[in-house]
């Protein structure tokens, strides 16, 4: 072995066989695992926090339209377009989300653009928790299994949520849930960013859009 490799290896060692340390680390890992298991059964307690970014993200530029309107963001850096169907293949609508990175701080802007050049946007899937959240608020959580394959409304604790009169189309719910997934991935890769003025979504339920 190269003597330098041996010296480097020795310099990188840290205590890992100490019983108290192992026990403390195991306790922490188990606590976080248990927390995640609990949240799976009552998902709305935590997602309200983790969804903060995307609630902001969809709150500002969101247009609850059933047909295309004029865009606030005419010169987007990223465009995410999806045609949505339910699990049976019934067309729900077509949505387009636009992201403009130029409003972000310079350092974040470069990283957001770089991030989107490296990912396959088509591979992202809507966050089921977000879909459930919106359906519950809309008073139709029973539609969850129709929109998310294999999802069961009983997996979600929803008793704390109040119903809103605002109704959102299925396609819009799915697009916003997709945005939630992307927002979380962005957080992991770029850090927390405010997308209030830089994100806009429109949806159309016009079947003609689905054929285009």
């Amino acid at each position, binding site marked *: 072995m190269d003597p330098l490799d041996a010296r480097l290896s020795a*310099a*990188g060692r840290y*205590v890992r066989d100490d019983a108290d340390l192992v026990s403390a680390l195991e306790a*922490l*890992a188990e606590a*976080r695992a248990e927390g995640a298991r609990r949240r799976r059964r009552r998902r709305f307690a935590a997602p309200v926090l983790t969804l903060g970014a995307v609630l902001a993200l969809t709150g500002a530029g969101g247009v609850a339209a059933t047909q295309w309107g004029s865009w606030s963001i005419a010169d987007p850096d990223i465009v995410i377009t999806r045609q949505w169907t339910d699990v049976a293949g019934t067309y729900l609508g077509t949505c387009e989300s636009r992201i403009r990175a130029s409003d972000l701080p310079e350092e974040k802007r470069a990283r957001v653009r770089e991030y989107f050049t490296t990912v396959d946007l088509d591979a992202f899937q809507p966050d089921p928790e977000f879909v459930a959240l919106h359906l519950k608020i809309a008073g139709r959580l029973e539609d969850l299994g129709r929109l998310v394959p294999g999802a069961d409304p009983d997996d979600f604790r929803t008793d704390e949520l109040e119903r809103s009169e605002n109704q959102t189309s299925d396609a819009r719910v799915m697009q916003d849930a997709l945005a939630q997934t992307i927002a*979380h991935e962005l957080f992991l890769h770029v850090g927390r960013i405010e997308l209030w003025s830089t994100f806009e979504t429109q949806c159309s339920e016009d079947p003609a859009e689905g054929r285009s």
Partner: protein
Amino acid sequence: MTHDHPEAAIADAASALLGFFLRRVELVDDAAELVNETLIEAWKVVHRIPSDSQAARMWLFGVARNVLRHHRRSGRRRDALVERLGQAVQLARVADEDVVLEVRAAVRSLPGNLAELIRLVHWDGFTLEEAAVHLGIPASTARGRHARAKALLRAILGEVENDSTVSSSIERKAGR
């Protein structure tokens, strides 16, 4: 090789993640907090952990690198379990020998991209190719940087090339 469950992948990596942070932050408490943050982030998207063990490890260290990049000491009240881990690490630590401190200081003195490559390969156990993925550079670039980093370290630490190189050098001189 595949792991049975993402839960196992996370649990298996916890110790290595602690080591990852201990080698990169000055305060033990920060390392404990960063492990905690990494576990929380990993669990949020647990369904995305690759089924292959090594890919899962790469993924978890990717999360850890991002957590470290965005870490700011929050000053918020720390979880009792995080406090306990921090204390356990403190108590378990033994005074490092001068020779170890010298090597760590030498690594720290390298340009940032070279130092991180050395840490990933020699301390975190990644291959050069895997380290290249973490750093977002081609493997060929990583190999070049690695050679340069080791040459710099040898110079800083007053190391000779290695035994075989020295031997062949001596033989060449003797043959003249």
